[in-house]
């Protein structure tokens, strides 16, 4: 018995949707084996990991808090990847966006007005967009590979944040802790209800809807899809590849920056050396799991948020490392990319190893 991959005559529409489902299933099964290997009851562990986070109001709210930045960033990255523009540096754009927005409460600590909040959000988006423009510039001007430049800029951004909160931006009344002044009043995002859910969740949904319309209906979205599929045809249509690179990087950078400022003006309430548990990287998985479709990203973002919560729950209740979340996220990306092979190929079982041979 031999397993053969055979190229399909055209893409399988069914597999486009089945592939993520299959990947999630495989991740759960392999996850079960990993828990068993750790000496845990796999069913209980999987329940704690995947189901429990959705059983209480508190944890559902927490889910939304974590899903919002993933969706914001993932929707922008989905647009990038559709255009074959590989922005891997959303984490850095998130960080710079947070810094830009946080500059207002840091330098104008006493300023209280609705304008403050608006300005912080705008600056957050601008900061992320500008930081995203760097790899776009390097790619368009010098042909530098954007995967490398955008990824390396993440570390630049994180070191800048680290230096600021330990140095010039450290709270003078903060007992030398590496953190900025705590934000107050209009420097914080308004909450929705009693819990921790803030208006970042609404921003995420609005962004998804706008990008969905843009990609599906607008000429700009068409331009992005054409450049991604066939740059030569794009040039024939009069679309500029460089313009698309600029647009994609600045759009996804702006959304990542917005997610960044929402983190520090939301759950954190101040700048700290670490402001994100790797949302910018996890959002890459969100974009692919969501089939590079903004609506798909909405669901994928919720799923990946569960993996974060599950990781925390597993740490508390099962006493295993919080790195479990990263293991699950890694497996998920691995399986989704593997299963995507089946969009273009079908599996065939060829009888007998020796019987069938090349003619």
């Amino acid at each position, binding site marked *: 018995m031999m397993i053969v991959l055979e190229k399909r005559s*055209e893409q399988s529409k069914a597999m486009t949707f089945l592939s993520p489902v299959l990947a999630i299933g495989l991740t759960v099964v392999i996850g079960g084996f990993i828990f068993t290997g750790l000496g845990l009851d796999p069913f209980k562990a999987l329940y704690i990991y995947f189901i429990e986070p959705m059983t209480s109001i508190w944890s559902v709210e927490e889910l939304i808090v974590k899903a919002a930045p993933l969706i914001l960033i993932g929707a922008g990255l989905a647009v990038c990847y559709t255009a074959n523009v590989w922005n891997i540096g959303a984490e850095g754009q998130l960080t710079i966006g947070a810094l830009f927005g946080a500059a207002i409460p840091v330098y104008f600590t006493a300023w209280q007005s609705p304008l403050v909040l608006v300005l912080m959000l705008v600056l957050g988006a601008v900061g992320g967009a500008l930081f995203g423009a760097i790899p776009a510039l390097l790619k368009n001007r010098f042909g530098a590979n954007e995967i490398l430049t955008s990824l390396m800029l993440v570390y630049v951004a994180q070191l800048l944040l680290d230096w600021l909160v330990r140095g010039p931006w450290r709270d003078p009344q903060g007992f030398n802790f590496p953190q900025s002044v705590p934000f107050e009043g209009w420097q914080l995002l308004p909450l929705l209800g009693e819990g921790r859910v803030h208006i970042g969740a609404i921003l995420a949904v609005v962004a998804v809807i706008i990008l969905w319309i843009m990609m599906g209906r607008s000429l700009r979205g*068409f331009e992005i899809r*054409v450049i991604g599929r*066939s740059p030569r*045809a794009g040039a*024939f*249509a*009069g679309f500029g590849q460089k313009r698309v690179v600029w647009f994609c990087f600045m759009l996804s950078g702006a959304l990542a920056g917005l997610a960044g400022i929402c983190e520090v003006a939301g759950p954190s309430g101040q700048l700290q050396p670490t402001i994100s548990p790797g949302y910018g990287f996890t959002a890459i998985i969100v974009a692919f799991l969501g089939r590079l479709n903004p609506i798909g990203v909405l669901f994928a973002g919720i799923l990946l948020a569960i993996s974060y919560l599950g990781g925390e729950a597993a740490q508390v209740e099962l006493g295993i490392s919080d790195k479990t979340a990263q293991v699950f996220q890694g497996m998920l990306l691995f399986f989704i990319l593997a299963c995507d092979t089946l969009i273009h190929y079908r599996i065939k079982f060829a009888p007998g190893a020796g019987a069938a041979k090349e003619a």
Partner: protein
Amino acid sequence: MNVDSSSEYLLEARNIVKVFGELRANDDVTLSLKPGEIHALLGENGAGKSTLVKIIYGSLQATSGQLFWKGQPVTVANPAAARELGIGMVFQHFSLFDALTVTENIALALPADVDIGALAGRIEKVSNDYGLPLRPDALVADLSVGERQRIEIVRCLLQEPRLLIMDEPTAVLTPQEADQLFVTLERLASEGCGVLYISHRLEEVKRICHDATILRHGKLVARVDPQQETAASLANLMVGAEVAAVKADRGGVPGSPLLELVDLSLPTNDPFGVALKNINLTIRAGEIVAVAGVAGNGQSEFFDAVSGEQPSANNETVKMSGEACGRENITRRRRRHAAFVPEERIGHGAVPDFPLSENVVLTHHAVGEGVVRKGLINRAAARDVNSAVTELFDVRKGTPDPEARSLSGGNLQKFVVGREMTREPKILVVNQPTWGVDAGAAALIRQALIDLARSGSAVLVISQDLDEIFEISDRIAVISRGEMSEAYPAEELSLEQIGLLMAGAHEKAPEKAAAS
């Protein structure tokens, strides 16, 4: 060695037939080559040169016919078997790793147990012996195109071939590099190595080749001594003498100039590209002007320059309806009622995995009636255009709006031509309108081009098909190495003249071109 004394030939390919589906790519072709002979293989694109060479080199197997090597019948099962016999091939496009050195690149093609240290010495010796200077430790990325080709040649020479096949080697070389290559080839020939030399450049064939085999439409048309021929007579043999009778009914008096090219030049950065030099051409309302030429003489660069995919630095070089637009991009030229059909329908004229209606948006987004309104695509309008094109041009498809790649070549070509025709353009520029298209679709497309011109539009056709050119065009210009001849009335142009032009008779002397 068991050499058959009855055979003076190193290689013979007798009565080779190769059938791909309906197409007879090689139809009873015979070629023979003596040791020490530089033998030219000539023919237009699609004449069957590559197929024949692939059969000799073992990448393809003939449907029927027989290869003889030193008089013995042989079967060349694959390129490795060809190399074992002593056949080496230098391809037009190199397969080298930029990040590796010359030695490492050559070692990759040799058996795994080669001693790299000793190899560098051998490379140096062979390259110096044959006048192909190469530094074994140089990185490929730092080398010029000519030097890269030397690596490929040295790679073959290290295996001490008895027959070297070269596929258009000078296409990528400067004249000086080409001269150097000719010295090497003559040296090889003097040592008894046979060279099978594929080229479009007739002057150099005349210069270095001892014998020539000419193919057309898969058939052997002539075996000639290039020294006894002129470049023009070789060109005639390549493109064929049986050109259709010139059509009597020409258009009326042409109207005002709609498309004017004035001293249009375009440099190229691509090593495989051709720079355009001072092209002047005027196309008037109501006429079809054709640009003839052997493939690879700047046709696609010319198309890009006229369409605006590659705008010119000087605004005055292109005029549409009398207005300068050389610096404008393709979208703004489309708004001047110009329409364009590129040579490659898949991946250039159409996005393969987009449905036809979305491929309508590709060229109609800035100009089509209501296809895009306020930045949003009107899908219904795009589908309407698709239906209209389909009906008018008889595009046969399984579903109303299939992906472009699911259409056959002829049907997709009818779609990409029809898509522009429905706009009723005042200027139409089309590159290879019927390339690889069945006869029915070709006739329909040619008729549409004629009808459009007769309705008062200017039509520019770039084609390698002389039959087509004489069938539809009013005037004919010839492009060679990026230079364009004057456009002559079709009925005044003889085959002899067109052959001379294709061979580059109108090209300016080098010092004049360099001075500009």
